[in-house]
């Protein structure tokens, strides 16, 4: 992205003869594009990401995301610590959905171990993962409002998220880096009264959801800022390997929870407990920013009904399977992809039969989703660029790992 340096004012060599005998000198004023580093310290990049944009006035003509400011060698650490010891590190790549990360890693190791998970642990996992999905979608929704200049919905979203974090704090003692789901089950059983509180949360949250919808989602300015902006067509979405709400926002009905089922999602789906929200172009074109953010907002409600289904079906029992204290994983390799709030979070683990993984690879959804920015950002205004970055809902901890 080198800028061509042209002199800003050039004279045409030949003057033009006017009818009255006068001569007119023609002048050409050319403007060169302005290169702006959006980030690494910028409020709209949701962390330390840099987007090198080239602008012609307010119009963005080229954009290039630069990653790697937050690289912490998570995968290499996974090859140097014991299987269980890697669990706290998984919290830290997508720090808004730590439960889901725990689940992905645990499931990959469990696949190698071939161990059976007790039913209560499965249900607790599902409840926690779905509540975490709501918390993550709340942040996505709130910060998206913040990107577009609406500050109040952000605080409303964080109010409910705060409650969720308190619920998590009660079951596992941490507010952000939970390390709650472990290989073979979960660490702790639900404390007394916890399931009732979750049920109470579900009832209250429904009203609040309507408030978000009325306050921001249908606001005319919000609609005009997001509809028809940053359109990703179905083909583009598939070509770029987008997953999660980015893919569903473009109208592709694909959800790993239903299509590559794990835990008891398939059972819940067949029981009619939840649906897969897909972008329909309600306010503009299919695959615009509004669709993407609305898929996330709808997913909150779907997760809520999933939690309700789990609360109905949870039963007493053990919370951890037959797992040795010092794990020795049989040799082999396993890949497990789960539906993270941001898309497919894949864990690939290779074991040689020892206490430490030989290879521990993570497929981060944010990283894969970010690649499309370069294609959809040119041709938009600076304000739209912010809206598009926000609609990808990246977590930089995950892109860089």
């Amino acid at each position, binding site marked *: 992205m080198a800028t061509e340096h042209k002199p800003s004012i050039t004279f045409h060599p030949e003057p033009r003869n006017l009818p009255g005998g006068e001569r007119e000198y023609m002048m050409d004023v050319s403007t060169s594009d*302005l290169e*702006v580093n959006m980030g690494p310290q*910028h*409020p*709209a990049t949701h962390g330390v990401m840099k987007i090198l944009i080239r602008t012609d*006035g*307010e119009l963005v003509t080229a954009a290039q995301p630069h990653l790697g400011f937050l690289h912490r060698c998570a995968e290499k650490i996974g090859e140097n610590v014991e299987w269980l010891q890697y669990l706290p590190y998984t919290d830290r790549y997508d720090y808004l959905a730590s439960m889901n990360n725990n689940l992905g890693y645990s499931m990959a190791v469990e696949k190698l171990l071939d161990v059976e998970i007790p039913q209560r642990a499965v249900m607790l996992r599902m409840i926690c993962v779905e509540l975490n999905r709501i918390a993550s979608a709340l942040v996505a929704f709130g910060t998206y*409002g*913040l*990107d*577009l*200049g*609406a*500050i*109040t919905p952000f*605080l*409303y979203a964080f*109010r409910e998220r705060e409650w969720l974090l308190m619920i998590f704090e009660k079951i596992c003692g941490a507010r952000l880096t939970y390390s709650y789901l472990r290989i073979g089950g979960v660490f702790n059983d639900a404390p007394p009264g916890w399931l009732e509180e979750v049920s109470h949360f579900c009832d209250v949250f429904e009203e609040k959801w309507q408030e978000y919808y009325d*306050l*921001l989602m249908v*606001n005319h*300015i*919000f609609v*005009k*800022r997001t509809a028809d902006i940053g359109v990703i067509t179905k083909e583009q979405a598939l070509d770029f390997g987008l997953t999660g709400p980015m893919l569903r926002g473009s109208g592709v009905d694909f959800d790993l929870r239903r299509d590559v089922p794990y835990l008891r999602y398939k059972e819940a789906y067949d029981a009619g407990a939840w649906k897969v929200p897909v972008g329909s172009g309600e306010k503009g074109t299919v695959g615009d920013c509004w669709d993407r953010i609305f898929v996330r907002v709808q997913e909150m409600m779907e997760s809520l009904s999933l939690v309700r289904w789990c609360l109905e079906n949870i039963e007493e029992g053990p919370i951890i399977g037959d797992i040795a204290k010092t794990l020795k994983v049989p040799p082999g390799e396993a890949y497990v992809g789960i539906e993270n709030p941001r898309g497919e979070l894949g864990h690939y683990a290779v074991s040689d039969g020892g206490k430490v993984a030989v290879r521990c690879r993570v497929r981060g959804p944010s990283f894969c989703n970010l690649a499309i920015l370069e294609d959809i950002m040119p041709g938009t*205004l*600076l*304000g*739209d*660029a*912010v809206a598009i970055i926000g609609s990808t809902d990246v977590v930089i901890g995950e892109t860089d790992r």
Partner: protein
Amino acid sequence: MAALPIALNAAQAALEVASSEGGNLTLDLLKQYAPESVPAWILPLTAAAVSVGIVVAVIALLALTSVWLERKVSGHIQCRYGPMYAGGWHGWAQSIADGIKLLMKEDMIPLGADRALFVIAPALVLGAIFGAFVAMPLSPDFFFADLHLGAFFILGMSSLTTIGVVMAGWASNSKWSLYGAMREAAQVVAYEIPLGLSLMVPLIVAGTFNLLDASAGQSDWWGMGWYIFKNPFVLPAGLLFFVSSLAETKRAPFDLPEAESELVAGFLTEYSGIRWSFFFMEEYAAMYLMSLMAAVFFLGGFESPFLHFAKAAELPVIVCNLIAAVTLITKSMIGVIVMMWVRWTLPRVRIDQVMTMGYKYLTPLALLCVLGAALWEAGKVLIFE
């Protein structure tokens, strides 16, 4: 540096007061109580100095109050308290504490900045807005300049702030600042038109540009003869004026020059400390100015039943003036609170939408209102006379 424009304004105010034919409460009082030995030319100057001192104090106080108010309003809208510690009762001294902090901060000028412009810009912005207040009466008998073209003068002075903002954006030598400055220029040019046009509607009804006369024209119907009740086109024009004044004062949803999530802080990116607070003060002073204009031309000015009955009861002039001032400030305070309420509700519009809204929506609607109001007034004249 900040003192220069203020001093200029003071001089101008002095000239205006000196040339006006009495009616100023300060001047009257001085004339009444000053000893014979004092030369006559000193009295108008003293009156001007006192008046300017009072208005600067009042504006500074209002700005400080409204900063605190904004934080409280935003806090309560967002289910939190806002400032609660400084000063005790609901953090009333927060703005003072902030002001002291800003004064103590290091005075920073970026290395590549145009130093002269960088320093002048905040002073110009604040000076312009103080200048606009010269034509704003605080009560029927207490004012600094009884200008015949008062409304015109205020609009002109308040759009002078744009020059300061553009200057700040250019002088900062930052790309974000430049974006902010360009946005401000485009936006203000676009919104001057609907702002002026929507103000035309009550001006047509009032038949004067003078703020005192316009206010006095609403004193019938027991002080409730406000222009919004007198002509059906004034109310929509008031809404248009409100929206345009939001854009004029760079308030959300039109805070594009700042746009903290897009342009970091727009033209303010490189400013800090007391210079930054000058821009901040200007924003709040401009909010008050626009609300005062709206109060004078749409919501009855000084007039309310309280003032009407106070006058009917023949209370002392000073009490009547006090009632009038409190009425006006209360009305403008309501306007300011609504501005804050809107700010904490809406997302920001995009720059092309700002332009579209200004040129394609507000301007035609304002023109319609002007036409309607003019026809209504003409019809009234034709039918009743």
